[in-house]
Each structure stands twice: as structure tokens, then as C-alpha cells.
């Protein structure tokens, strides 16, 4: 009959310990998220009404709704994506499908990864220098969105590159051997099989863009504007900056108001993430190898 040895028992004990440790770390990770959501819903939930979403702030931003900030954030994110997604995907396609695997490509890849780690305030100041002053866009949606685009480009590139690389190399070889050009290979085999990952990356990007404050603070987001932007050359309010302003800069704001704004912002982000997960599930269901 099998008897557990001393070593077996010891292994089992260690196994349990490690498992418990990892479990605790996971709980520790989830806990803050749950607390944040709970507090926001508890304090901010009652604030959320149709009026709150669709009217302008009044009384020096101590009352009224958040419409200009909501619309402004949508503008900023949309314009930023229009710029960063095509450029990012094109750059990723070049790096993954065309560029030779040499030291230059490798250093560019490394630079892109590092670029993703540049603090957003540095991007903000770059945006002021480049878009607001040098290109004379002034403080406008255009300048702010371009700053956001520059900031999010590396992430778009890395996410796209990774989904492209996930397509087995053998597929490309088979296509090339058939006489397909690189573009035909990308168009017929690589893109159709990486689109789910690319979309997921892009949508996760949206959530990051929506929440950024520093890059838009000096480049296009306004403290208070009681009207909606009409073009990309207008300034605009934005959810993230609005939250910062009413939490720290304006006296006499009712206690629940910032919670309400934060709840709307986080809901936008979570809705986007949910969409991205849904996308991924639908497209992965169609995965073909």
C-alpha cells in the first residue's frame, strides 16, 4: 500500500500555502475595485438622472448637469482615435509584416514600449509646445486629441503587433510560396485572423484615453464652458478635468456631485471594456485554427 512519505506531506503543505498566498493576492487586487465601485454607486448613484446627463452645469458648477463635459470627452476620444488608430495599425503592420528583423527594428520596438511609459504630464507639455504653439492650433479639441493620440499610439502599436504576431508564421509562408505579395497575405490571411485582438486593443485604448486628465489640461480642455463644442478648433470641457475641478478647485460643491461625475466616467470606461470583451468573445468563437 502506498504511504505518503515525509517529503510528500511537506510538498502538499507547501502547495497549500502557495495557493493560499496567490489567492490572497488576487482578493487584495479585486477588493479596491469593488470598494471604489461600491462607494461611487452609494454616493453617486442617486445623482444620476436624465437631467444630470443632459443639462449644463449651473451656479458656478455647484449644481446642474454634466452635458458639456460628457460631449467633450466623446469628441476628444473620437478625434484621438481617428488619428491614432490608422497610424498605429499601419505602423504595427510595417513593424510586424514588412520590416526586416534587425537591430534597427528591434530598437524601434523597444523605443515604442518605452514610449508607452512616458508620464502623461510630459506628453501634455509636448502637446503644448507642438500642437498649441508650434502648429498654432491653440488650446482646442484638435491639439488635445493629437496629444492624446501621441500618448496612446504606442499602446495601439504594441497591441496590434501582438495580435499580428499571434497569427502563425506558417500561414504567411504558405501564402508567400503561393506567389502572394505581402499585402495580399496581410489582406487575406493575417488581418482576418488578428482583427479581434486589434479591436480589443483599440477599445481598451479608448478607456484609457477617456480617463486621462493631464494631457488635455493645457491643450484643449476648459475649466468651464457653458456651451458645446462646434468644431475641433473649439475648446471643450471634459469629464476627467471636470471631476478634478469640482473636487479641488470650486468651493461649495455638494458632496455627492463629484461622486456622480466619477460614476458616469467610470461607467463609460467599463461599458467600453465590456464591449471589448464581447467583441473578443464573438470573434474568438470564429477563430479558425
Amino acid at each position, binding site marked *: 500500500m502506498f504511504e505518503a512519505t515525509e517529503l510528500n506531506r511537506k510538498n502538499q503543505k507547501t502547495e497549500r500555502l502557495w495557493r493560499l498566498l496567490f489567492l490572497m493576492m488576487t482578493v487584495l487586487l479585486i477588493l479596491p475595485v469593488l470598494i471604489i465601485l461600491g462607494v461611487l454607486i452609494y454616493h453617486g448613484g442617486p445623482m444620476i438622472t436624465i437631467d444630470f446627463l443632459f443639462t449644463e452645469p449651473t451656479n458656478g458648477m455647484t449644481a446642474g448637469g454634466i452635458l458639456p463635459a460628457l460631449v467633450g470627452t466623446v469628441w476628444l476620444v473620437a478625434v484621438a482615435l481617428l488619428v491614432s488608430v490608422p497610424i498605429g495599425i499601419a505602423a504595427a503592420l510595417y513593424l510586424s509584416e514588412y520590416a*526586416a*528583423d*534587425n537591430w534597427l527594428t528591434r530598437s524601434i520596438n523597444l523605443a515604442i514600449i518605452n514610449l508607452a511609459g512616458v508620464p502623461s504630464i510630459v506628453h501634455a507639455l509636448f502637446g503644448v509646445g507642438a500642437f498649441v504653439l508650434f502648429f498654432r492650433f491653440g488650446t482646442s479639441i484638435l491639439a488635445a486629441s493629437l496629444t492624446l493620440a501621441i500618448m496612446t499610439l504606442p499602446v495601439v502599436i504594441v497591441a496590434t503587433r501582438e495580435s499580428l504576431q499571434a497569427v502563425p508564421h*506558417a*500561414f*504567411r*509562408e*504558405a*501564402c*508567400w*510560396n*503561393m*506567389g*502572394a*505579395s505581402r499585402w*495580399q497575405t496581410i489582406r*487575406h*490571411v493575417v488581418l*482576418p*485572423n488578428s482583427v479581434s485582438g486589434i479591436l480589443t486593443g483599440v477599445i481598451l485604448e479608448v478607456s484609457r484615453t477617456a480617463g486621462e486628465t493631464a494631457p488635455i489640461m493645457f491643450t484643449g480642455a476648459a475649466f468651464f464652458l457653458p456651451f458645446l463644442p462646434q468644431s475641433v478648433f473649439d475648446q471643450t470641457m471634459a469629464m476627467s478635468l471636470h471631476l478634478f475641478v469640482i473636487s479641488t478647485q470650486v468651493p461649495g460643491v455638494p458632496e455627492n456631485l463629484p461622486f456622480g461625475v466619477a460614476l458616469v466616467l467610470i461607467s463609460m470606461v467599463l461599458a467600453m471594456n465590456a464591449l471589448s470583451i464581447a467583441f473578443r468573445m464573438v470573434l474568438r468563437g470564429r*477563430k*479558425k*485554427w
Partner: protein
Amino acid sequence: MVRPENGAGPVKLAVKDLAIHYGPKSALAGVSLDVREHEIFGIIGPANSGKTSFLRALNRMDLHTTGMRVEGSIHLDGRDVRKWRNVYALRRQIGVVFPLPVGLPLSVYDNVALSPRLRGIKNKADLDVVVERCLTRAALWDEVKDRLDSLGSLLSGGQQQRLTIARALSQDPKLLLLDEFSIAVDPVTTMRIEDILRTLKDEITIILVTNLVQQARRLADRTAFFLSGEFVEVGETEDLFTGAVRDPRTRAYVEGRFG
């Protein structure tokens, strides 16, 4: 090293002083051989002999391989493959079958129709004809005709390998390169594919890389022996097995004494 012989067809592929390097590392050197029209030309040798590199050089896959350098000359139908302005047109004349079947993540139909489509054939009726003809020639039509829309990668290994042969045939190639096609295929399917190859050679010149010595013996008219990146020799296949070869290493290899 090519022995003149009776009844030899015209030269399809002429390789002279071919050497292949990956970076500083030599993969194959000193290859000079002629492949004649409508023959099955075998290449045998143990792993790492440079057999696959040789095939890659033929259809200019060195362009897609960082660090791969090809020296010497390769003439297909008398034209230097490196002087083809349009490398895609060159590759369309050369079908390739890999060791492990690569079913593209497309339906059975689309796998075979891809190459015609890339050439600009869009008419559904024309494509249907090509698909049926190629699948039939690859002895797969009867098994898949009712599920042309299902994924190629859902077929069995042997079926997938025949699918890749059908795909290679859909290019209407003049030259068919097979790189150890039977590695992932059961013996029965291997025999079926070998039968297919025997009939195909009336229309297509075939280069068969194999590490199964007996497969070369069964199929190849002439065979070359590569060893550790060195081109040892080329000759009538039977000569390699009956001892009428010059190099003792060939004899040792075909008799299974090493490799």
C-alpha cells in the same frame, strides 16, 4: 556531376555552384545539378543537410528570411530566378508542400481558390472548375465535396496534406516542391500521395525532399544526396542503391548505417 543518360528530357532547373548562408553560418555549399522536365528529382539527406534551404532558394524565399544569402545561379526554364523582376510571378510557377500540412484558416474551397483569386480570377464558375479539378487530382474531392465550406484545418492530417497539394496545384505550377510531405501522414495516405505524384509527373516537374530513403527509391528518377550542408553527389536513383555511386558516404546513408 550530372551523368548524361539516354532519354533525358530538357533541363527544367539548372543549379550551379549554389551556396546558402544564414548570417555567417553556411547551410549548403557547392550544389550543381540539373533537374529535367517531367522527372521526380529526389533529395535525400539527414536533418540539417540544407535540403529545405535549397527549396527556399529556388522560389526566392530568401527575400523573406532575414540573414539568408544565396550565391551561385539557379535557372528555371533558362531564366535566372534572381533576374525575375516579379518574384510573385516566379513563385506562382512553383508549388510548395510543407512537412506539416498548413491548412490556411479558410474553408476547404477557399484554400484551393485562394491562389486563383490572387491571380485575379473572380468568376465563381471558373473558380468552381479549378477547385474541383485540383481536389480531384489531389485525390481529395470525393472526401470533401460535401463539405467544401467547412474549415480546412478541421480535416484530418492526411486530408490536410492532400489539401495543401491541391492548393499547390491550383497555382498551375510548372515545378512542384515537396518538403518531407509524409512526416505527418499515415502510411496509407502516403501511398496515395505517392500515386498522385507518379501521375502528376507527366505534367509537372517534381522535386521531392525526403528523409525516407525508400521513398526516394520508390519515386525518384534521379536523386541527390546532401550531407551536413555539403552536396555529396547526384545520380540515377537506382545507382545510389546498387552501389554504382562514387562516394562511400552515400552508400552508408542509404543502407542506414548512419543518419
